[in-house]
């Protein structure tokens, strides 16, 4: 091994984690393995196909390190509760706030849970029910997920017993000021149903590096809205791995507007027959922002469906990347998969790279994919102006119309759709040109 490698800046933080957490021996062994793995892999480079379009320089130059834990007494410099208000769901929720990747009870409001529901921070789960997380750490992770597994201290665990329907949404706020390596574990038993809203935000240009592990039993339904609204100077990396059993449905919506550098990798395995994965989303970027949304759907079962519709709005000198792969395994007949990535460039400096791909090894499949890149329609702009609407408002109306479709088509529950629309409007007010 080389004398120095990409893991060097994280060694102290890693030792600190090992010194402070009290956890089962298997996990410590796991952490060491993951740290070694990251040391071996290093940060991805543009020579790797999946990272060809992503510029990690803003992160690698000076990766933010986890801040020491806030004093247990709750002194600390956490966010004021009022600063979270604009980001909260306008409805009753089970709310868990993570500040720099650690559960912040003073900002959270869990509420009473029905029987058959486990909703708790990862650290608490490791104390009380470590068995729930044994085996929830994958082998052979990618670099960022490996670093997360080595450095995480907390996160959220949501587990539903078979048949349990959790009506009230679970709301997870990631508030990041330094660095956060949070974990999200969701396991729904057969026929269980839950709704999760995950909002990433913060101040001061930190780095949120999240890993989500989702397992849906037969017929389970998870609705998952992700709003990435990080500080404009922040870095955001997230890996989501979902496994779907027979007839399970994963309904995802991702709205990405924040961060200097953002990357969301979703890997969804449709293992059971008749499983369904739907992703609607949008990245809306300005200035020097770059965001990559990378989605891989592996079809293994019979008659599974994937539907991805991702919109991009790129202003300033921003850069959007969509990487979509649908892989149909031999024998996964009856697959129905559609991928569509549509992009709107609002300035000559904005860029987009889009790569929807199919890998089909089965016979009886229906797959389509497409990508478009365009600018605002001049005829529509003139029509609006010919009715007295000023050019700036006309442009805003057309951009909103283009992007809001990502929210409307997701078919979210009303409160979630309202939150997403509110966030879209906030972005439009903030400087879409």
């Amino acid at each position, binding site marked *: 091994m080389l004398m120095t490698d990409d893991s060097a800046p994280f060694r102290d933080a890693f030792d600190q984690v090992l010194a402070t957490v009290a956890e089962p021996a298997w996990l410590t062994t796991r952490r060491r393995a993951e740290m070694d793995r990251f040391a071996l892999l290093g940060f991805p480079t543009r020579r790797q196909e999946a990272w060809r379009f992503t510029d990690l320089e803003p992160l690698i130059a000076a990766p933010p390190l986890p801040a020491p834990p806030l004093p247990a007494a709750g002194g600390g410099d956490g966010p004021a509760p009022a600063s979270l208000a604009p980001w909260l769901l306008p409805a009753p929720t089970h709310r868990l706030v993570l500040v720099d990747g650690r559960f912040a009870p003073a900002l959270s409001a869990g509420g009473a849970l029905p029987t058959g529901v486990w909703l708790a921070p990862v650290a608490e789960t490791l104390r009380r029910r470590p068995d729930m997380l044994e085996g929830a750490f994958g082998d052979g992770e990618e670099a960022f997920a490996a670093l997360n597994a080595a450095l995480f201290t907390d996160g959220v665990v949501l587990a539903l017993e078979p048949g349990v329907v959790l009506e009230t949404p679970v709301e997870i706020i990631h508030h990041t000021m330094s660095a956060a390596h949070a974990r999200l574990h969701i396991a729904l038993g057969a026929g269980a149903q839950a709704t999760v809203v995950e909002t990433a935000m913060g101040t001061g240009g930190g780095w949120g590096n999240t890993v989500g592990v989702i397992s849906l039993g037969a017929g389970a339904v998870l609705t998952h809205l992700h709003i990435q609204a990080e500080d404009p100077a922040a870095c955001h990396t997230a890996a989501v791995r979902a496994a779907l059993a027979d007839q399970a449905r994963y309904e995802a919506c991702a709205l990405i507007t924040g961060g200097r550098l953002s990357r969301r990798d979703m890997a969804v395995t449709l293992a059971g027959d008749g499983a369904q994965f739907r992703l609607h989303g949008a990245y809306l970027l300005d200035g020097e922002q770059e965001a990559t949304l990378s989605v891989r759907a592996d079809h293994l079962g019979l008659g599974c469906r994937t539907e991805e519709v991702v919109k991009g709005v790129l202003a300033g000198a921003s850069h959007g990347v969509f990487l979509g792969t649908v892989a149909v395994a031999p024998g996964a007949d009856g697959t129905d998969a559609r991928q569509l990535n549509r992009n709107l460039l609002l300035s000559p400096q904005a860029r987009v790279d889009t790569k929807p791909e199919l890998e089909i090894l089965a016979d009886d499949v229906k797959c389509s994919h497409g990508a478009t890149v365009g600018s605002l*329609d*001049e*005829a*529509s702009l*003139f*029509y*609006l*102006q*010919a*009715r*007295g*609407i*000023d*050019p700036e*408002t*006309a442009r805003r*109306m*057309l951009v*909103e*119309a*283009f992007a*809001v*479709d990502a929210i409307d088509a997701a078919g979210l529950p009303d409160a979630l759709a309202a939150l997403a629309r509110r966030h879209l409007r906030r972005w439009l007010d903030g400087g879409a040109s």
Partner: protein
Amino acid sequence: MSKLLEIRGLRARIANGREVLKGIDLDVAAGEVHAIMGPNGAGKSTLSSVLAGKPGYEVTGGTVRYLGQDLLAMPADERAREGVFLAFQYPVEIPGVNNMYFLRAALNAGRRQRGQAELDAQQFLKAVRERLKLLDIGDDLLRRAVNVGFSGGEKKRNEIFQMAMLEPNLAILDETDSGLDIDALRAVSDGVNRLRDPARAIVMITHYQRLLDYIVPDRVHVLADGRIVASGDKTFAAELERTGYAYLGDAA
């Protein structure tokens, strides 16, 4: 009657292209309905585009005064807020923008310009219902996105409905009759007739005489090769029907 619109020696070309308008003179007074007829390529649609401020055209000479102001100096959106309305020959479909949302934004933009209070949702709905009743059209068009999935006739009726809502001083109807069957033509014409007003001027541009059977103009002009070559009162249209444009072109 005061002159609402005064066009003097207007010359215009398609940007970096050929000259289409070669010196138009036209006066339109409040309360009047003018028809501008002529063969394809005469410059009819260019005239309406230049008056509405559509990008892609260059005015190379002449003046247009609207209520005493220099119309050509105003951007398109300001012209609209000042009361100039263009009914499009091909109304644009705008997916994702709701018809009502769009219309309320347009209406309130005009009201702000005139120093009037904006209409709230309830006042706006009331105004919508009145105009729908006036024009005898259903409210199903309003729930959809602007012109999306509308038939040709529905699009043209939507244009006239917008005109009824925005209450312009000057309405330019660009080939509003094109592509309409006889029932749709009658419905659209009835709408326009109900919007005739002593304070409002209407300029309708058409290729076909038949529109003038439904909307009877005060003045009829023939546009040929970028100039108005003949004008007359409403009986002139019937004469044109018999003689055709070719004869007039020769006579001009």
